[in-house]
């Protein structure tokens, strides 16, 4: 018994992909800035700052995104106004991303050989100059695969925004399913759309990582 799933439904789904992308890009951009700050704090010689960043990373990485989402959503609502789901989801994803990206990038910076730091500082460059001119340019090559890999995770995580009512791809699927109840078809399609978004990025990340491994051998 097919029928019920019309081209209007299909268009509705496809349009919602736009919102998935908006949320993804927003979270990635803001989370990236946050992650950079977290990374700097984590590698700081100031112990209190490094510890604070560690606690932040461990805390965020230790709780489910869904819970973080609820905390942000209800936390913002405490002030009385109904926060648009996009803002709440964007904020939650940004916090989540900053912790993960900060940790990834910290790992990449720390993987840079200590002699590079020594050589630079012995040329009288400041720590910040060393970071900016010597370490980060080299670390970026190493950081690209896991960063793109995280972007894939991020796109998938935007699906959770559906729980607080934001109409992105998953929510659109739920709405359609609630009216015509053909879950295999609808969620299969939804899954396929996510796949189309994510798979190319996954492959790109994988091929970059392969190239890195070959050149490192």
């Amino acid at each position, binding site marked *: 018994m097919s029928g019920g799933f019309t081209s209007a439904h299909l268009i509705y789904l496809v349009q919602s992909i736009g919102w998935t992308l908006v949320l993804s890009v927003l979270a990635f951009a803001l989370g990236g800035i946050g992650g950079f700050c977290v990374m700097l704090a984590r590698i700081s010689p100031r112990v209190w700052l490094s510890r604070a960043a560690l606690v932040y990373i461990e805390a965020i990485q*230790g709780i489910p995104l869904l819970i973080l989402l609820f905390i942000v959503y209800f936390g913002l609502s405490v002030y009385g106004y109904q926060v648009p789901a996009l803002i709440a989801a964007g904020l939650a994803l940004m916090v989540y991303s900053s912790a*993960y990206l900060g940790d990834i990038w910290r790992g990449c910076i720390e993987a840079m050989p200590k002699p590079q730091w020594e050589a630079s500082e012995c040329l009288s460059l400041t720590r910040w100059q060393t970071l900016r001119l010597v370490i980060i340019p080299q670390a970026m090559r190493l950081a690209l695969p896991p960063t793109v890999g*995280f972007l894939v995770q991020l796109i998938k995580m935007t699906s959770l925004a559906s729980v607080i009512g934001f109409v992105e791809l998953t929510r659109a*699927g739920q709405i359609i399913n609630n009216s015509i109840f053909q879950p295999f078809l609808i969620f299969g399609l939804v899954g396929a759309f996510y796949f189309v978004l994510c798979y190319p990025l996954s492959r790109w990340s994988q091929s970059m990582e392969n190239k890195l491994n070959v050149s490192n051998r």
Partner: protein
Amino acid sequence: MFSLDFSPLWPYWPTFLLGAWLTLKMTCVAVFFGLILGMLVAFAKRAKVPVLTRICIIYIEAVRNTPFLVQIFLLYFGLASVGLRMPTFAAAALAMTINIGAYAAEIIRAGLESVPRGQIEAAECLGLPKWRIGWHVMLQPSIEKVYPALTSQFLLMMQASAIASQISAEELTAVANTVQSDTFRSLETYIVVAALYLVLSLIIKLIAWAVGEHLFKRRRAIRLAAKRAGKTPPDTQRVDTVIPGGAA
């Protein structure tokens, strides 16, 4: 500045603990079966049967490139639509098993590929049967090498279990949803639950560490010997194939 009032939550602490226990149970079940599934798929993918390899690739890539929420909807509502109504716990555990299986398969595969060809050849020349080679020479050192990546993945899975609340499975997040609608103390409830997840994470990390110490005696022996000699222990090459955030 608003004020946080945790007092209405006190009477619910048994409920919270029950939720935490259910989450732990669900995760452990999924990890157990998911690990087995992952091992099977890892070997199947390496077997020289193109059809099998193709199926494994499709399975792994499909799971890794779609959100867990969609996977669980597909499984639960999809099966319901053809008349198969599963209990929510089983459905959630099954979805988690399938999800974990795909990630574990890739992690284990990377471990298997890092086994030096020479060791496999030596084992073959000793006349060891294929399955013994697979178990002793390939799988055991691989698991040791990828153990950190595996434990990270399992932790991520525990967090993904929160998503099971969306099909009304009984676990910690579902409990949180109920309690907050009872007490109207939404923010406090989720903060408490967040703390509980952190505690669960710690417990799992501890268990994982203890299991690792017990299983991988070689590593422990090397590390203790290095410590006694006053040197830093050798950093055995780790195979890091986990992409942080992966699972959901």
